[in-house]
């Protein structure tokens, strides 16, 4: 019987190299979304609608808006905020709800651990996928901004790598938190954290609107770091402050990755 006759083939099963494992996890997710592309698209649309409604709609009645002392169009202020929100959506949707489903119901990771894959491969692969989804969302968003004549600097191209950073930070932390969830009800907490972050992280109005103490708190949120980074890039005014955001987001992602790996060990290798 050919199935069992190892002699007919020279290929032998073997442990994967790190990069291979991550690529395969990405490929698995692409296969899934190839049949569920609508789900993929709806996640992208929300910030786009906000750009049109608030940025352009409300923006039409906003006059004399200034940012960092320069007069700019209000919609040019809102657009980068929506880029960051788009990157957040792109990663968090998979890092929370879908990750929970794969972990508890689909038993996907139990399946993977029966193969040479390791928990670290799973953690890295899924975070890369979060990044990829963020990157795709933001690249598409950038195209919309170009079409709307909202981009005036070459620096704006760097929002795509910035999206990867935001994606890894939210993805890793989202997954880490999700490993502690026991039921779908727990996800209300995620929604409860996402909503105010989306509305108050200097997305729709400058941080200078806050009193000093509140400002500090907002500045510590990951979305705020993402928003200012994207804004500095699309407005073409990067600074040393941008680097702070980069380091902050990198650190967020790295810590999240370590926690996710440990938690997968604790949950799956019992």
């Amino acid at each position: 019987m050919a199935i069992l006759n190892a002699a007919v083939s020279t290929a032998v099963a073997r442990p994967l190299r790190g990069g291979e494992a991550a690529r395969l996890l990405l490929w698995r997710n692409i296969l899934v979304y190839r049949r569920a592309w609508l789900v993929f698209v709806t996640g992208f649309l929300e910030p786009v609608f906000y750009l049109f409604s608030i940025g352009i709609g409300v923006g039409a009645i906003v006059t004399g808006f200034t940012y960092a002392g320069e007069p700019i169009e209000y919609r040019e202020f809102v657009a980068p905020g929506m880029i960051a929100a788009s990157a957040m959506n792109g990663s968090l949707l998979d890092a929370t709800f879908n990750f929970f489903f794969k972990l508890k119901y689909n038993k996907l990771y139990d399946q993977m651990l029966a193969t040479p894959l390791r928990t670290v491969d799973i953690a890295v692969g899924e975070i890369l996928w979060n990044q990829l989804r963020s990157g795709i969302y933001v690249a598409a968003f950038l195209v919309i901004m170009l079409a709307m004549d909202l981009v005036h600097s070459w620096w704006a191209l760097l929002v795509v790598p910035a999206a990867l950073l935001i994606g890894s930070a939210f993805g890793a932390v989202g997954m880490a938190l999700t490993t502690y969830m026991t039921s779908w009800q727990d996800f209300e907490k995620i929604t409860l954290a996402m909503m105010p972050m989306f509305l108050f992280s200097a997305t729709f109005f400058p941080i200078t609107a806050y009193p000093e103490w509140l400002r500090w708190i907002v500045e510590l949120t990951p979305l705020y770091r993402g928003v200012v980074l994207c804004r500095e890039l699309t407005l073409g005014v990067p600074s040393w402050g941008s680097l702070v955001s980069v380091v902050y987001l990198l650190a967020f992602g790295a810590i999240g990755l370590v926690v996710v790996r440990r938690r997968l060990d604790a949950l799956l290798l019992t």
Partner: protein
Amino acid sequence: MISARGLRKSFGDFEAVRGIDVSVRPGVAFGFLGPNGAGKSSTMRMICCVSPPSDGELRVFGMDPGKDGPKIKARLGVCPQEDTLDVELNVYDNLYVYGRYFGLPRAEVKGRIEELLDFVQLTEKAKAKVDDLSGGMKRRLTIARSLINRPEILVLDEPTTGLDPQARHVIWDRLFRLKQAGVTLLLTTHYMDEAEQLCDELVVMDQGRIVAHGTPLGLIQEHSTREVAELRFGVGEHEALAAKVEDLAERIEVLPDRLLLYSDNGEAVIEAVHSRDLAPVATLVRRSSLEDVFLHLTGRTLVD
């Protein structure tokens, strides 16, 4: 292929596996029998490198699961108790993605998928969603998946639990063919007919320990008699009548609806019963089965 010495596994205060010694030779179909909670699945998980042993020594292909997990797993096929099929992918992609996790080239995986779908009779379902498959089909798909890396050891945790008789026989047939082809089978089950059909060698586990070890026939010879005479009297009479016949058999067991008399010659027992002017409503002589051994060793009490 596998050797365990004093292997233990505890979860907090609960000891699931309490020091077992096992050695599995190549090409053997090796069974783990035991009631629920006996420690079978915990043992399987340790062998599959997804559960670090709490104590003792475990070697699979001569390697340590703690250090060489991925290397061991590349040569293992795993068919878990619960199907862990990827419900977000169709049948074909389930096999494809899984095969690629073993570092096999694309073309190789595709070739193997065709063979395996044919082997488990699912070729026509290649494009079907996993959720649309019947229980038996899911199991067959899981078995096909576990074979994609051409494993040297195939681990099956309760392979036919919850399946209808037809589906069970298809799976037994396939497992038998794998055994013929030289694959080492390691399986847990609480179906005695399954163990008798498939296993060359088996251990009976109870409360985390191995309570018996041998071939199916050897275990019957060692722990039971050749035959069993079953006597059925009126309801409620069995307890009282047991005393009158217990000297006729090596061992007697009283059940609510019948008496079991373990003896090497069942017919002679029945004759002797009749000669004592006892008139059972029904009698039956049958050969001792693994089930008799199992119930004798692990008791009739329900385990939860």
